[in-house]
Structures are given as structure tokens and as C-alpha cells.
């Protein structure tokens, strides 16, 4: 697992990291094939953009249309399919006033914030012990933690449900967040960044008479703050996007999380209201999309290390 991550250290790929292929490629580009190559490249780029962005565009646009408007615009296909001509906010209003999506968003945010704060405390402390304190059995402890990295969360839903029922936590927001705060993935991420801090810094602080907690708080944490942002984003992402466990753990409408609310507006039985569902899906997605667009560079090193947990 450690090898796995060290290989991926430089995954945050900026435009400045020009690969050798680029230089060689450009040397070869001269010649009659060049124009065709450029046309071909542009076509491929366009196709990729359409495949990945157009569905989102359609989703956001349709959330601003009425049910009949969506169907009228979709066939025949035209620019109107993707641009709302008569913008209506009735879906958004119905979502927040009639369906209580504000409450679901708040619940999702509360659970995510709880998970971020608790796992930050737990994982930074544990990562410090595993990288900075020499004690017997350190590797055994690390192995015990890493082993849980292999457990698929989806397989544990039934016993976890039993566990939170036994703790009388069913249908509480606490039950949604608390099982995941000892995150092996998070610890793994932080352990790596803690290891990158030179031990000389500890030694210097020790000579100044600092104890472990002082070193942890005022030497290590300030140095690794960028990785901590990545950590926070990852935990927030997993929590916000989680579905199966919130679906199982919560029964009442007032404690519903936003993903469950969206899923239930499409799910079996009733014919879905397309406009309303699109608007709901948009509302559930926009916070993360905005975060991602601005902080992409901090997301990607974290994503590169996930086993998608």
C-alpha cells in the first residue's frame, strides 16, 4: 500500500509539467500530416467535452424548465434542449418550500462537517504517533489499521445497522457520520505527509524542551497544512456523496440527507417529475462542483490515493 501511494506522488499534474512526449511530438509534427492531425485532435477534444459536460448542462438547464417544457424541447433536438428559454424557478421553489430540500442540504452539511472535524482530530493524532513516536508494536498497530482499508463499506451495512440500533442511535444524524470517522484512508493520507516532514524539526523542538503535543501542534501541523486541506476535501466528498448507509440509517423525512432525497424522487412507483428531479440533482451537485473547480489541484492528489472509499 505504501508503494502504491509513493508511485503516485506527483499525480497533481499541472500544465507546467510538460512530458517528454510533447517535445518529441512537436518535432514530428512538421509536414503535410500536421493540419489533419490538428483537425483530428480538435474533433477528439470536442467529442470528449460533449460526452462529459453536455449531460451536466442538460441537467442544470432542465432544472429551470417545466415538465412540459423539457419534453417540448427535447424532441426534436435543438439548442433549446440545452438552454432554458423561459426560465422558471418553480422547481427550485417547490424543492425548498414544498419538499424541504433545505433541511436535507443542512443535514448533509452537518454530517459532513461532523465527519471532517472528528476524523481530522482522530487521524492527525494517530498519524503523529505512527510517524513520530518510536514505540514497540508500531507496525502491528499500523497493520491493524490498514487491514480495514480492504473492507468494503457496503458489506458492513447490516451489522452496522444492528450496532446503531443497539446504541439507540437509529434515525439520528450522529449514526450516519460516526461509523466512518476512524478513516483508514485518511490516516494513510496523513501518515504519508507527516513522514515527509524532516525529523530534524522534531529534534530542534525537543532541544527547546517541547513535548510531543507541542511538536504535534506547532511543528508538524503547520507544515502539513496543504495536505490537511486535501484530507478535509476528501472526507467531505465521501460524506456528501454517500448513499447506501444514509439510506439505511435514516428513516424520518426530517433527518433525510440530500442524496437520499434525490434518489427517492426518481425511485420506483410514482412517475418522476423531471424538472423537479433535475433541480434537486443540481442542488445536490453544485456545492461540490464549485469546490472542485476552484480547488482541483488539492482534490487530485487525494483522489489518486483512494481505493474509492
Amino acid at each position, binding site marked *: 500500500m505504501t508503494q502504491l501511494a509513493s508511485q503516485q506522488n506527483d499525480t497533481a*499534474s499541472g500544465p507546467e509539467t510538460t512530458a517528454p512526449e510533447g517535445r518529441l511530438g512537436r518535432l514530428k509534427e512538421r509536414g503535410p500530416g500536421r493540419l489533419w492531425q490538428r483537425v483530428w485532435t480538435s474533433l477528439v477534444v470536442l467529442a470528449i467535452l460533449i460526452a462529459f*459536460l453536455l449531460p451536466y448542462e442538460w441537467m442544470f438547464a432542465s432544472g429551470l424548465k417545466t415538465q412540459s417544457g423539457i419534453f417540448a424541447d427535447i424532441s426534436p433536438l435543438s439548442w433549446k434542449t440545452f438552454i432554458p428559454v423561459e426560465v422558471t424557478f418553480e422547481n427550485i421553489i417547490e424543492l425548498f418550500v414544498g419538499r424541504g430540500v433545505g433541511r436535507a442540504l443542512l443535514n448533509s452539511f452537518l454530517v459532513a462537517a461532523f465527519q471532517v472535524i472528528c476524523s481530522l482530530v482522530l487521524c492527525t493524532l494517530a498519524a503523529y504517533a*505512527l510517524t513520530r513516536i518510536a514505540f514497540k508494536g508500531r507496525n502491528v498497530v499500523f497493520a491493524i489499521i490498514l487491514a480495514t482499508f480492504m473492507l468494503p463499506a*457496503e458489506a458492513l451495512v447490516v451489522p452496522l445497522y444492528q450496532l446503531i440500533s443497539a446504541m439507540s442511535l437509529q434515525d439520528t444524524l450522529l449514526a450516519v457520520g460516526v461509523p466512518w470517522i476512524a478513516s483508514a484512508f485518511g490516516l494513510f493520507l496523513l501518515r504519508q505527509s507527516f513522514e515527509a516532514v524532516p525529523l530534524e524539526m522534531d529534534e530542534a523542538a525537543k532541544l527547546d524542551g517541547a513535548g510531543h503535543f507541542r511538536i504535534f501542534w506547532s511543528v508538524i501541523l503547520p507544515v502539513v497544512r496543504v495536505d490537511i486541506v486535501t484530507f478535509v476535501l476528501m472526507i467531505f466528498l465521501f460524506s456528501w456523496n454517500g448513499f447506501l448507509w444514509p439510506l439505511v440509517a435514516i428513516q424520518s423525512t426530517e433527518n433525510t440527507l440530500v442524496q437520499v432525497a434525490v434518489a427517492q424522487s426518481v425511485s420506483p412507483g410514482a412517475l418522476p417529475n423531471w424538472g423537479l428531479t433535475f433541480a434537486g440533482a443540481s442542488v445536490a451537485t453544485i456545492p461540490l462542483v464549485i469546490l*472542485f473547480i476552484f480547488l482541483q489541484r488539492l482534490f487530485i492528489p487525494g483522489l489518486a490515493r*483512494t481505493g474509492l472509499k
Partner: protein
Amino acid sequence: MSSTTTRLVRGAERKRSRRELLVAAGFLAPFLIILVIFQYVPVGLLVKNSLFGYTLINPDLQTFVGLENFARIFKDPTTLQTILVTLIFAVGVVVLIIPLGFLLASYLNRPLPGRGILRTAVFLPVITSSVVVATLWNFLLANEGLVNAALNSLGFSTMSFLTDQSLALPSIIIMSVWQQVGMATILYLGGLQSIPGDVMEASTLDGAGGLKRTFLIVIPLLTRTTVMVVVIMTVFALQSFTPAYVMTQGAPGGTTNLLVYEIYKQAFTLQDPGFASALSVLLLVGAITISLVQMRLLRTRWDY
């Protein structure tokens, strides 16, 4: 040094190491306690439950059934179909995502116009929740949805992607590939950027052309990355639940009845958590085996 001082030093050292152990325990305790309660205890409970027959409504009324739940997995044709469907789904996702992820990464690794927006576009589905992706695709693939509208305007007839027995599973495979290909691309980009520049230059000087270079040098050098992508995507696919829940409910004819959806149904709808636990144990063993194989493979040196 006299023996007394040695003993004193040793004594102090032992005292220090004991103190260090205590401090370490303090730092680790919160994490380990939560980890044991919410990871190790559930695994134990899961294995125990898989040997019992009971309901969630009345969990105290248990009867010991031994390995009967496991025997049922391999006797019940519905469950066998579920396992088969899940495996086909996993293989389909992996087989499509490897070449696509590699191609996209090779593309994004070059100086292209608009590379930044291209990269954002490919990664966007990775950070979008599975519920939103499934919801969106549900409407994309509906009979009156966007894909069929496009097909109609090109002169093709409407296809029932999610209700036709031969199209439903391929449809959710393609949806999952769309959703996860950005992940494979991130991993391959990392791999590509770790290939030393002189290796590429040397191969060009040796007269290796683009295709030859890709197949004889780049792909073998990326074996480790490929192993990782295969494992991550397989584990992702084995755990998939949302497409079945949101889009198809396992229909038509059980052709999209993914394993985790079956576990969910058995435990919470059909009130048979014992059997659901046996299925979960199967999933657990499968995922752990794949991870162990990965570790084994990555420990092998892939030097060329």
C-alpha cells in the same frame, strides 16, 4: 563506564520507552477505539449473523442454521444470477475503463489547447455522487430521454436502454465507465509522468515510432498502474448499488440485480438479514482477496 551507571542509563531508557508507549497510546486510543467498534465489531457480527436465521424486526428471535445460508447462495438460481451479473458488470467496467483511461491520460499528458477544461470535464463525474449520476443517466437513457432524442434525429428508432433485457446491463456498465474513467485517467497520468524523460528520448533515438513506443515501452512501464486501476475498478464495481436502486430495481428479469442491491433487499425488504450477511461475507472475501492479490503483484518488481 561502571556497571551501576550502565544500569542507571538502561533504567532511564526503559522508563523513557515506557513513557513513549503511554504517550503513543494516548495519541492512538481515540482512533483505535472507534476503529474497533465500527469496523472490527461489525465484521465479527457479520460472520456470526451469517450463521443464523432471523428478522430485523425481532432480532432476538434467532435460530442457528449453520452454513445453510451459504449453501443457499449456491443453490438459489436468483442468487447465482446476481453473482453472475455482478461479475459481468465488473469485467465490463474494467475492460472498457483500462484502454479509455489510458488513452485519455495520454491525451491529457500532451500540450493541448484547452487541456485544463478537458481535465476538469473528465474528472467531474468522479466527484459527482453516484445518486446524481444514476439520476442523470436515468433521464439520458429513458425512452423520451436525450440519447433517444439524438438517435431519433439521426433517423434511428427509440431504444429501451433500461427495460430491454439485452441492453440494461450494458447501459449501466457504460454509465459506470463514464462515471469512473476520470479516476483511471488520474492514475494513468501519474504513471505517465513518472516515466523518466531519457527513456522516451532513448527509444526515439533507437527509431521507435509512436505506436511502437506506446506498446513496447510505455504500456509495460505502466504495469503497476494498470494493476492498481484493475483492482480499484473491480472493488468499485463489486460494491455498486446505486444504479440498481435508482435506475432499474434489478430489472428487467434480474439482469441488473447487483450483489449489494440484493444484500440490501434481503436484509431490509425481505427481512432475511442472516442470508444478507452470508452474501456480505462473500463480498468481503472477494474484495479482500482482490486487495491481497494486488499487494502481491505490486510487491513483484516490474523493472525493465
